[in-house]
């Protein structure tokens, strides 16, 4: 076996062991502190929420452990010669065309196999675990959950933010499924800037924000920060209609679009 193959195997083993160890630590910490909400926090009195978070993290960690092992085995199998050799031979026999077509088909097939390993776990997390804990695929969180964990934790071992790939920005369940399917094939649908501008209007209805008081507060903040908006809109999913809550502490009603590109496309200092 070549030295690079050994390096690859060693790195894969190290990364897998690190993931498992971190997941176990996370799970253990969540379980151990489930009944002890930190007294210094402003939510100290809401122990029920703390316990729910701990249970949620532990449940996701269990799935994450299995996914880590399955993904590691798939990586090792797919990328170490034999499986690629078999795929190459089969594809060469079935697909007409020259080397280029065979090469593209080979890469696409490897991506499909790798992504197909992740999809069942991702769907299970979204439609089973999150449903069990009260999340629904069509729920629209009030704001984009930026105060969360990085998306790199694909095993989501106690991911404290909105779950990986979960609904954000008011997208409805159909787009969520599309995003999930998009992962099969290595395609990541656009998220930050393209979503509110191009994708969201396909699935949602935008209407001008009518709450004058809220609009004034938002525009005042924008002006204070040196931005200007081209309009404030409420994004409503076709299957979910959530009424606005003007008393929301974050100045954004639950049904309002948090598509910052619509709000803040003006250049800084332009207000």
């Amino acid at each position, binding site marked *: 076996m*070549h*030295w*690079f*193959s050994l390096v*690859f195997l060693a*790195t894969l083993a*190290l990364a897998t062991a690190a*993931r498992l160890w971190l*997941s176990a*630590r*996370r799970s253990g*910490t*969540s379980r151990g*502190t489930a009944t002890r909400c*930190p007294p*210094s*926090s402003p*939510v100290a009195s*809401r122990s029920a*929420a*703390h316990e729910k*978070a701990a249970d*949620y993290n532990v449940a996701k960690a269990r799935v994450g452990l299995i996914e880590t092992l399955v993904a590691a085995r798939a990586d090792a199998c*797919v*990328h170490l*010669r*034999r499986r*690629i*050799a078999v795929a*190459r*031979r089969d594809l060469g026999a079935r697909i007409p065309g020259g080397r280029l077509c065979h*090469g593209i088909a*080979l*890469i696409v097939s*490897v991506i499909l196999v790798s992504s197909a390993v992740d999809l069942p776990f991702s769907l299970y997390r979204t439609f089973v675990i999150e449903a069990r804990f009260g*999340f629904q695929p069509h729920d629209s*969180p*009030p704001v984009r*959950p*930026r*105060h*969360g*964990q*990085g*998306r*790199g934790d694909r095993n989501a071992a*106690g991911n*404290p*933010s909105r779950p990986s790939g979960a609904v954000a920005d008011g997208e409805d369940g159909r787009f969520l499924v599309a995003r999930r399917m998009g992962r099969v094939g290595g395609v990541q649908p656009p998220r*930050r800037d393209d979503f509110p501008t191009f994708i969201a209007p396909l699935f949602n209805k935008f209407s001008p924000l009518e709450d004058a008081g809220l609009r004034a507060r938002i525009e005042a*903040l*924008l002006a204070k*920060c*040196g*931005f200007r908006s081209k309009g404030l809109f409420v994004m409503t999913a076709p299957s979910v209609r959530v009424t606005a809550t003007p008393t929301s*502490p*974050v100045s954004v009603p639950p049904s309002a679009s948090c598509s*910052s590109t619509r709000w*803040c496309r003006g250049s*800084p200092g332009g207000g």
Partner: protein
Amino acid sequence: MLAHELGHFSRHHVWKRMGMASAVSLALFRGPRLADGAGLVLRGPGGTLAERGHSPGLFFMIAPSFTFLLQPLGSLYSRLHEFEADAYAAQYADARDLVRALVKLYEDNAATLTPDPLHSAFYDSTRRRRCAFRAFSPCTPRR
């Protein structure tokens, strides 16, 4: 929360991250040549498996195993941006509103206030919540 997001925009975090990602990607293009030379993904029992031009695609499929150990650095870089955005938000909005927003996110997302420190340092792209609560407590001077 809006002020926080405006902070990212104002501090040009998107451009910075795109630049960083581009630089890392360019550096990783060295990888396929290593793999090519080693025959990791290009050769099999029957001989040559893929053309030389396919090696980048195949290599980038195994790259996550190598880049995983660099993830804490990426998380640290992301946290720095989050700190800057938080500071920006605290400058232009009421810090108590920030705390209330964090509490709401905590409850809506079933987030834990007691993460494992090591796991948090490795994965979290934002500061730990208790730190954020303390940082934005009303008695803390605004930055």
